């Protein structure tokens, strides 16, 4: 394994690991605060039980998220020192805001997790809301730094140095809004559907549990709304990528040759040698429309770029298809859920529906991972799009693969332990929370 691949793999693994915890850290505080709010308003035991049971699990996720995030702050430099040397002064600003937001989040979380009996109800609830808002803000700031790598702004590049740095312009680059929106919604979708899925699974085992039934419905409300908004955010993203990162769009779509109008291809496998997508279903003109809002627009293909500046088409394309496929399934599920809730409430109690929801548990997170692969692999070979190549930014220390192997072992081990701990918590829910054993 060469050092560039090792460094990229280590970064990918570290980000891929952290993002799961980051999503949970953004969403769960809001879910818990919502549940606590319902408890304060209605006085029903089940709501406070849910908030408390969730907070037990969240404490573990949050801590692992915090440490894996600290690791990332170091790894940016350890793996890509040349990148941080140039990027630090330009995108340090969102990172410093992120630091602030994360600080507030960590403090408020301490108060929320340990202050159940030490604060008034509303103060406690407020600390939960602060955790959620600070979590979402820190997510937005970090994504804005990533957006800058995709759409660099706020500096001039001369002789391999950045001059005329404007950190505000860098932070509010052309991609920050669409990426931040897309990520926050994705966090809510992935986490809410996973929570609903786990509780649906438990409800199938204990069909009378008010606790699990309430949890499924509460989580699905959040998941459904976010999943229905996501296609709109995706549309904003597509138009942005078409305009500012045409090579990425071409790789996403496996569009080897510039076309006017361009077809949207569903499914299929891109073939770099034949420069075509095999076995896909072509829908004429739709890509032109999605990218530019015009069925006859020209869409740039990879032929407009030198071959050494192509991203890995097959990885970008397949990841994109996975993300879109899952997004569609979850959006439709969300729509059905709202429909059933409004009209055919009985359906929500059927075993089939619960099995389906349980089946969806991991899908949102798979889509999040796939989406990040699209963004990151789709930007290659650049680390700062059009400015600095990843191979020129990577650490010059030989033997990075050993760091990568070690961190892989560590993360695999942690994942296994977390699953084990979570499963232990779930097994004890009925014992520890009165409403979990209560029948409907």
């Amino acid at each position: 394994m060469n050092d560039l691949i090792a460094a990229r793999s280590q970064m990918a693994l570290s980000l891929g690991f952290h993002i799961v915890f980051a999503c949970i850290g953004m969403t769960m505080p809001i879910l818990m605060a919502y549940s606590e709010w319902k408890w304060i308003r209605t006085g029903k035991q089940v709501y406070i039980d849910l908030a408390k049971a969730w907070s037990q699990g969240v404490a573990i996720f949050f801590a692992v998220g915090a440490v894996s995030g600290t690791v990332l702050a170091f790894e940016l430099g350890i793996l890509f020192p040349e990148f941080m040397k140039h990027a630090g002064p330009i995108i340090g600003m969102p990172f410093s805001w992120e630091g602030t937001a994360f600080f507030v989040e960590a403090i408020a979380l301490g108060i929320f997790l340990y202050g159940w009996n030490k604060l008034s109800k509303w103060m406690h609830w407020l600390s939960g809301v602060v955790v959620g808002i600070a979590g979402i803000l820190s997510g937005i700031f970090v994504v804005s730094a990533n957006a800058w790598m995709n759409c660099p702004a706020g500096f001039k590049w001369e002789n391999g140095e950045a001059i005329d740095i404007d950190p505000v312009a860098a932070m509010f680059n052309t991609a920050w809004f669409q990426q931040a929106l897309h990520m926050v919604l994705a966090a809510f979708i992935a986490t809410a559907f996973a929570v609903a899925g786990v509780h649906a699974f438990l409800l199938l085992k204990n069909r009378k549990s008010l606790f699990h039934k309430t949890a499924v419905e509460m989580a699905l409300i959040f998941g459904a709304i976010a999943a229905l908004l996501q296609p709109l955010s995706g549309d904003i993203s597509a138009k942005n990528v078409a305009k500012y990162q045409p090579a990425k769009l071409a790789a996403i779509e496996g569009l080897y040759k510039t076309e006017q109008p361009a077809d949207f291809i569903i499914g299929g496998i891109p073939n770099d040698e034949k420069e075509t997508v095999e076995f896909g279903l072509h829908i004429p003109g739709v890509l032109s429309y999605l990218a530019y809002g015009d069925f006859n627009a020209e869409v740039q293909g990879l032929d407009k770029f030198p071959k050494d500046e192509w991203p890995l088409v097959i990885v970008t394309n397949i990841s994109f298809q996975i993300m879109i496929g899952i997004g569609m399934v979850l959006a439709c599920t969300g729509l059905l859920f709202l429909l059933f809730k409004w009209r055919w409430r009985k359906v929500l109690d059927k075993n089939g529906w619960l099995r389906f929801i349980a089946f969806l548990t991991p899908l949102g997170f798979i889509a999040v991972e796939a989406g990040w692969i699209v963004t990151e692999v789709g930007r290659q070979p650049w680390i700062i799009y059009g400015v600095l190549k990843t191979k020129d930014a990577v650490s010059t220390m030989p033997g990075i693969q050993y760091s990568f192997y070690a961190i892989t072992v560590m993360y695999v081990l942690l994942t296994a332990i977390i699953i084990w701990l979570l499963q232990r918590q779930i097994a004890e829910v009925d014992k520890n929370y009165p409403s979990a054993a209560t029948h409907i």
Partner: protein
Amino acid sequence: MIFVIIFILSVSFLLYTLLGGADFGAGIIESFSGKKGEKVISKAMAPVWEANHVWLILAIVIIFTGFPVVYATLSLYLHIPLMIVLFGIIMRGSAFVFRYYDVSENRMHKYFSFFFKTSSFITPFFLGITLGAMMLGEITTINAGTFFGRFVHPWFNLFCATLGLFVTSLFAYVAAIFLVGEAEGGEQKKYIRLSKIFLFITFGVGGIVFLAGEMQSQHLFEGFFRSGLSITSFCIVVLIIPALFYYFNHPHSFYLRGLIALQVTFILLGWFALHYPVVVYLKDSEPLTFFNTAAPAATIDQLLIALFVGLLLIGPAFFFLFRVFKKSS
């Protein structure tokens, strides 16, 4: 403007040494305090440990935004010790929450405790090694020579190792004093005894750091005697010891904590005075200072705004957190 940034960076560094240090140290102390100690330590740490460690993130962000060349240089040449620090940080935080949040005791806890304790020792040791490498000036930026010479030798040596030990024992010392206020009766006596032991170890190792420095032609003594601020700081550090002993005999958590905070502040100030404005000494080029590595003014201004707003929010929030949880003690 840049002076304000340097000041905030130093304060974050100090707070990390105190709060993060107490936290790492608690993990070291746990090795000497038995099963009861585990309970006291877990209970004292659980609500605050994450917030305590954010000071490190703050310091890192300030360094990579404000002094990018320092960050790039350290992270390239000190890849190995920094990776070990990272492993320590992940292992420690995870093992701690795994143990604390698991629903009931079981045999896995033994392993969680083991990892928690070992990483509580390893992480500060390698943080100290990293600091040592910044002071020692064996880092070479010339792209030639062996792997060992470029990426191992700058930190793998006697001086760095003694500094690693110093940081470790300092953290344990801070933690022991902090824990005096968290325990009562016989438990408390145990922490007082540990405080005294680690006080002696810390001062002993501190002396050895100076000797090891001489052996590797790092003339710490010479610099020390030339700097009025270093000498003054050292005198204050020493003068605090009798006061500490008074409160060891008449335990009072607030005064003990105040005194250790003061002592650590002056240890760091004395050290800071030796080096300022240098951040990293290099083997065959000019040292990196706060000034020759500073980011452009526009960046520094924005960083300052973010830090200022941040501290306005964080300060009161931190105060509230400690008030809620430390009221009882």
